[in-house]
């Protein structure tokens, strides 16, 4: 039986290892056919921003991996509205993440769901397992 897994991402990328470790665990969970959701709150929203170029800091950029999540059936990506606003960001500053719905002739659909804090709280309440990064 598949369980509902929620991964909460609260850290900016590159400054700490949390963002990359979360991605690794998310992909493992998806490989085991679980129902996976991701939430990005606080500085976690910075993980999804466009235009990351890590050449100068000598680290590998994992930014493109978020684009691949849809192919692993990870297509419920919740971004908290309040966190974006606090940082002067809008949806346009984030990568456009999509997935293909095989039930609808592989129609391309948005993976990111912009939610308010109270809506996110309901989503959290609905999970079987919650993992925090």
């Amino acid at each position, binding site marked *: 039986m598949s369980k509902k897994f929620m991964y909460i991402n609260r850290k*900016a*990328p590159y400054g700490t290892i949390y963002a990359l470790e979360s991605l690794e665990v998310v992909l493992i969970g998806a490989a085991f056919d679980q129902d996976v959701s991701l939430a990005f709150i606080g*500085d976690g929203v910075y993980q999804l921003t466009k235009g*990351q170029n890590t050449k*100068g*800091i000598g680290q590998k950029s994992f930014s493109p991996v978020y684009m691949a999540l849809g192919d692993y059936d990870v297509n419920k990506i919740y971004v908290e509205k309040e966190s974006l606003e606090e940082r*002067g960001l809008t949806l346009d500053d984030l990568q456009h993440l999509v997935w293909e719905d095989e039930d609808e002739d592989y129609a391309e659909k948005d993976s990111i769901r912009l939610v308010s804090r109270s809506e996110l709280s309901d989503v959290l309440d609905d999970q079987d397992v919650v993992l925090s990064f």
Partner: protein
Amino acid sequence: MTMLHTVNKSPFESKTFDTCLGLAKGGSTILLIEDGVYAATTGNSVADKIKNTSDINFCVLDADAQARGIEGKLAEGIKVIDYEGFVDLVAEHDTVQAWL
């Protein structure tokens, strides 16, 4: 005495930037590095703090800004420096305070 302050924490998740700003004297330099560079972006709740501080030089490390894709969103008056510029700043100031 001039002091170079480095801040490497995001201003949204830590009080480091506020503490540094509160203790930095006029004429000193605050260099934002690693996750600290987010303090240099416009349109957020932190931007006004830099805007309202006129006697401190604010710098941001280019490589860290680029890694986070914010080089196009930097506030006015913030100097972008490379690693060599970082070394120059260390040499130019009497002391370095690395806020952690």
